[in-house]
C-alpha cells in the first residue's frame, strides 16, 4: 500500500489506541469511582454550588439558586 495510506490508517489507530489507553488508565485509577462527586468539581469554597454567578443583566440579583428568583438582595450574599 502507499506510504500515505499506511500513515493515515496508522495515525487513526494511534488516535483510537490513545483513547483506549486513556480509558483504561482512567478506569483503573479510580476516575469512575465516585461519579456523583465528580459533578461538584467546578465548585469550591469561594464559588460554592447553590450560588449563581454572572447575573449581569438581572436587576434584582439573587445568587442563591435555591431561592425563588425575585426580591432584592445584596449580590455579595453570604459566601464562606
Amino acid at each position: 500500500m502507499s506510504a500515505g495510506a499506511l500513515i493515515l490508517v496508522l495515525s487513526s489507530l494511534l488516535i483510537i489506541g490513545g483513547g483506549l489507553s486513556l480509558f483504561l488508565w482512567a478506569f483503573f485509577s479510580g476516575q469512575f469511582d465516585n461519579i456523583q462527586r465528580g459533578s461538584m468539581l467546578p465548585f469550591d469554597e469561594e464559588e460554592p454550588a447553590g450560588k449563581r454567578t454572572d447575573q449581569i443583566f438581572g436587576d434584582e440579583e439573587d445568587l442563591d439558586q435555591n431561592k425563588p428568583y425575585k426580591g432584592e438582595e445584596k449580590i455579595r450574599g453570604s459566601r464562606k
Partner: protein
Amino acid sequence: MDPGSKQPNTLSVSELDRKARSVVMFLILSGIFWLLFGTLLALVASLKMHLPDWLGTAGWLTFGRVRPLHLNTMVYGWASLTGAGVALWLLSRLLKVPIMLRGYIVVAGVIWNIALLIGSIQILAGNSRGIEWLELPVATMVPILLSVIIMSASVLMMLVMRKVKQLYVSVWYLIAAFLWFPLLAVVSSLPIFDTPTVQASMNWWYAHNVLGLWFTPVGLAAAYYFIPKVLGRPIYSYGLSLLGFWGLALFYNWNGFHHLIGGPVPTWFVTISISASVMMIIPVVVVAVNHHMTVVGSFRAVINSPTLRFVVFAAMSYTFVSLQGAMQALRSANEVIHFTHFVVAHAHIGMYAFVTMMLFGACYYIIPRITMREWHSKGLIKWHFWLTAIGIVIYTVALQGIGVFQGFSMINPDVPFTDTVTMTVPYLVARSVSGFLMTAGHLIFAWLIFRMVWRPGEQPATPLVWNKIREEFAS
C-alpha cells in the same frame, strides 16, 4: 458537598485567575485581531459571490484566494488562539494550578501570530498550498504546530502537578484536544500523500477531525464548565457526560471520509465513515440531554448572564449541527445536498453558531475575572448577542433553504445548470446582509474589550460581582 480532595497550598480561584491574566489575555486579544481580519475577508468573499466584478481586476483579492484565507484566519487565528486561551484558563481553574510555561506560551503565541500573518500574505500572493483547511504553506504551519506543542506541554505539566485528584469532564476534553491537534497537524504536514485521491482522503480526515477533535472538545469543555458555574447547579448526570466523551473519542476519527461520498475512493472507505457519522448520534444526544436537564427551569438565570446566553445558544447549535451532519452523511441525503450551499451553511453552524458563540460566552466570563474590571455597557453586550445570533440564523436559513432547492435542481437534468446558480443569488445577498450584522456584533465585542483593557476606571454599568476579591486584595 466536598468538591473532591483539595490539597494544602492550593491557590484560591482569584489567585489562579491573576496568574492567568497575561497569557490568557494575550491569546484572546490575538484571537480577536484575527476575528476582525477574518470577518473583513468574509465580507469581501460574500459580496464577490453576487457582485463578481467588484474589485475584479485585483488578482490578490480574487474570490479563490480571499475565501480560503477567510477560512484559515478564522480557524488558525480566531478560533484556535482564543480557544487555546479559554482552554488554558479552564484547566487552571479545574486542576487548581497556575498555567505552566506561561512565558514560553506568550513567546509561542507571538511566533504563531507572525507565522499566520506571513501565511496570509502568501495565500493572497497565490502561494496557497491548495488543500482545503490546509492552505497555509507548510513553512508557516510548522511554527504554529510548535506553538501548540508548547501549550500541550504546559497542559501535561498542569495535569501532573494538579491539586485535585479527580478530573472533571472538561479536563478530559481539553487534554484530549491538546494531544489530538498536534498529531493532526503533524500528519497533515508530511509530504507522503503523493497521489491525488490519497491526498484527498487525508484532506478530509484532517479537516473533519480538526472540527471534532480540537474545536468540539474545547467548546464542550467550556459548556460543561460555564453552565453549572453560572447556574450554581451541577451537571444533571455526570456519568452520562463521561460516556459522551468516550463516544466522541472512539467514533469521531472515522467520520472524515463522508466528504467523499460518490467520489473516486473505494466504497467501503466511505461506508465506514457513514456508519461512524451515524454512531456519533449517541454521544451527541448524551451531551444534549445533559445540558438540557441541567438548564431546564433556570431560563431567567440563563438570560441574565451574557455568558450563558452565548453558551446555551452555542450548546444547542452543537446538538443541531451534529444531528444534521449525521443526517447529511446518509447517501440519499448526500445525493441532494453535496456540492451545494447547504454544506457551507452547515460548516458555519459548526464553526460560528457553536464554536464562535461558545468562545464569546467564555470571554464574557473570563475577561472580567482575570482583569478584575467590569464591562462598561450592558446594552452593548446585548447588541453583540442579538446581532450575532440573528446574523447566523439568517445565514443558516437562507443558505440551507436555497441549498436544498439547489440540490434538487442539480440532480434534475431538465433544469439548466445556470438556473441552479441564478436561484441562489438572492440568498447569497441575504448571506451578505447577515455578514454585516455579524460584523457589527464583532466590532461591538472588540470595542467592549478595548474599553475594558485600555480605558478602565469608568463607572461600571454592571454590578460588582466580586467585591470579595477586591477586599482580599485591599487587605
